[in-house]
């Protein structure tokens, strides 16, 4: 039975999404609940199975690589699936209200989101270079229509931009895959490594195409231009999914390829360059976040910055950097989802999200604002929180490898994050209201406020649960560094 779990983790949500699309509004009240619960359940099953018995492999169609495609649930894939289950589950609770019976497009939301959930799990489990291309496209083509749900008239320009960059990025990746197949005669992640290492300049160009394509998809500075408008304009539940999970999927692939098939090619200079991109993203994204006038754009630019931390793994490439980068992915995912949901509640209540006009929300939106503040602690990297653990690990890695300049980046990134989070909180809490806010919407019900709070509390809880999660992740894959 255990060897079936990876298949179920992909196809339970995926099939549920297809059924939702087919049945439409008839099943809107109960089908999404059932599907989300089932998906979380199989994801937890996978987590416990991997934690107890180690990695699981499943050969699709019974054909072993290099002929067929394998699904591999190793530590890294499993923690990402767990993150998706936690964030996805809580966002689903939020969406039950936000995209429930009252929303005419609810059926589309649930069909797309459930298929996206399955696609993300498929991407994390995939052990085949070409299959990864297909799952990348699945994730993108599910994400873009979700952005449109905010009302096509508002977000169509952002969605179009997102599509162009995503499409070009994945074709660039595919070009690299084509060269790799020419060199190695295989697509399996575990088999192509030696041929790429011995491939000379062809191997290097193939690796470059794949890495740059993924950097575009991951919205890493300077390819971030499509992200803020798309993430800032989407409905809150969608923004949370996009920022916490979808862009992270591309960074995940960078980590996976770099420590797997590309391990033999990793060059010190290239690794430093990747780190420099990460540092630039941290500084640029944080400064932009501080300058934004709209709350959701603050959070969106914060994503640009936070993704940068994960890139700091590449120049350091030691066990602590590996753990730190992945742990940062987890804690940022949880905290960022909380921030977006909280910001969404502000938007529901006020009808706008202009940072300067947030005054006097502390009474009516206390729970959501509290969630924003708590999640902010993790984003800033203050103890006790998941963000702190991640930055601490990265900091120790930078000292261990003697690359002190990354420590400087880490500390300034934390200070800048504090600046943009406190700027929002200052407007929301500290300024006495000169007049009551001209509200246009209802106070979001608890079912919309609680998921944000829970996610924020989880971001704090991650500060105490590092040991089991890092044990599940396992050490740095061999042959890296």
């Amino acid at each position, binding site marked *: 039975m255990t060897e079936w779990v990876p298949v179920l983790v992909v196809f339970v949500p*995926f099939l549920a999404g297809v059924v939702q699309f*087919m049945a439409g509004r008839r099943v809107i009240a109960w089908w999404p609940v059932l599907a989300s619960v089932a998906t979380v359940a199989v994801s937890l099953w996978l987590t416990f199975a991997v934690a107890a018995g180690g990695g699981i492999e499943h050969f699709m169609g019974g054909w072993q690589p290099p002929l067929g495609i394998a699904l591999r649930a190793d530590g890294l894939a499993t923690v990402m699936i767990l993150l998706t289950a936690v964030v996805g589950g809580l966002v689903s609770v939020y969406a039950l209200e936000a995209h429930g019976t009252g929303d005419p497009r609810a059926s589309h939301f649930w069909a797309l989101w459930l298929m996206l959930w399955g696609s993300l799990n498929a991407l994390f489990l995939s052990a085949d270079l070409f299959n990864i291309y297909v799952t990348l496209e699945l994730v993108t083509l599910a994400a873009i229509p979700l952005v449109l749900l905010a009302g*096509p008239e508002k977000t169509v320009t952002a969605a179009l931009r997102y599509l162009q960059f995503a499409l070009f990025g994945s074709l660039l990746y595919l070009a690299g895959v084509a060269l790799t197949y020419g060199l190695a005669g295989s697509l399996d992640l575990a088999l192509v490594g030696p041929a790429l290492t011995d491939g000379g300049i062809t191997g290097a160009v193939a690796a470059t195409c794949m890495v740059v394509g993924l950097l575009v998809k991951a919205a890493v500075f300077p390819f971030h231009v499509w992200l803020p408008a798309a993430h800032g304009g989407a409905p809150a539940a969608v923004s949370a999914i996009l920022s916490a999970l979808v862009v992270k999927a591309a960074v995940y692939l960078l980590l996976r390829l770099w420590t797997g098939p590309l391990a033999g090619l990793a060059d010190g200079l290239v690794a430093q360059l990747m780190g420099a991109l990460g540092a630039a993203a941290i500084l640029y994204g944080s400064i932009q976040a501080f300058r934004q006038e709209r709350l959701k754009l603050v959070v969106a630019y914060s994503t640009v910055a936070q993704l940068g931390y994960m890139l700091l793994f590449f120049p350091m490439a030691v066990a602590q950097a590996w753990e730190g980068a992945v742990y940062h992915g987890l804690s940022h995912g949880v905290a960022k989802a909380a921030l977006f949901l909280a910001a969404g509640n502000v938007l529901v209540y006020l009808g706008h999200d202009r940072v300067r006009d947030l005054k006097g929300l502390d009474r009516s939106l206390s729970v959501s604002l509290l969630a924003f503040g708590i999640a902010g602690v993790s984003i800033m990297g203050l103890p006790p929180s998941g963000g702190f653990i991640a930055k601490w690990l990265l900091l120790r890695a930078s000292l261990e490898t003697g690359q002190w300049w990354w420590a400087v980046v880490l500390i300034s990134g934390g200070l800048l994050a504090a600046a943009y989070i406190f700027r929002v909180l200052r407007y929301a809490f500290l300024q006495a209201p000169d007049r009551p806010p001209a509200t246009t919407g209802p106070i979001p019900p608890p079912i919309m406020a609680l998921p944000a709070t829970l996610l924020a509390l989880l971001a704090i809880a991650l500060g105490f649960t590092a040991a089991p999660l890092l044990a599940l992740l396992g050490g740095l894959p061999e042959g890296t560094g």
Partner: protein
Amino acid sequence: MILFDGVLALLIVVLAWRCVTAGDLYLGIVVFIVMGLMLALSWARLDAPDLALAEAAIGAGLLGVLLLSTWRALPGHRRQDRDHPPARKAVRWLAGVASVAFGLVMAALLHALQPDEDAAGALALGRLTEAGVEQPVTAVLLNFRSYDTLLEMGVLLMALIGALLARTPLAPYGAATDDGTDSPLIPVLATTFTPLLLLVGAFLVWAGAYGPGGAFQGGAVLGGAGVVLVLCNRLQGAPEAGILLRLLLVLGVKVFILAGLLMLPLEGAFMAYPPGLTYPIMIAIEFCLATSIAVSLLLLFTGTHGVRVPER
């Protein structure tokens, strides 16, 4: 033949150049379609008749129709570059130099590339008898790497949802009522040509087991038959889809997944076909896929949730 290949390759490059840089957008689209046809020709020369068929039917044919209909729907001033001027001269030069360098590197690499004889493809050719069909590409698509094909159907479905969401609140774009509807060719097209297309499409799906063809090529031709009917006003877009149409839309992906999951307890692996039943299962899946592809492509063309027969 080397002369023919050389001329064909040169033609493709010139067309691509014109497509990317044409002053007029309409010209760019037309050149793109012609380039697609030339590519199909070249792929036929490169021992890839399946792909030549697919490129001609989907890459040049259907995409061409979509490109032209989008162009026609744009307001006049939006067809020009005025609001979206190309990048500045300095950027253009920089991009030019970079792309020439990129092209030269890729050309050199491609000439140095020598695939092994122990590639996965050789394995696939060697184990063709276990796959249930004679045609290697179909064996890979529906058996060895059927998982890719399944997910690809998901991509098609989501692209359709996205296109519908983007277009829904605009005035429905039904049949082409503005021009050509009284042409004497219309009845001929609708009554003679469409059944022929349906026949060819179905044949292509079936033929995929033995020779060039398959679900995608056949499905595209079937979808094309639908497009002809819409253009002839025998079929038009409808704002709502009935459950039957939706069932057809998801038929491919659903049958694929359910068949795959059923094999899990029976054969121990997702989509591991039981020996002896491989061929019938694959043909059944192929026809389901082709149906879904045809309906999806038709709806991508009409841009509506459903289709209906117009009242007369």
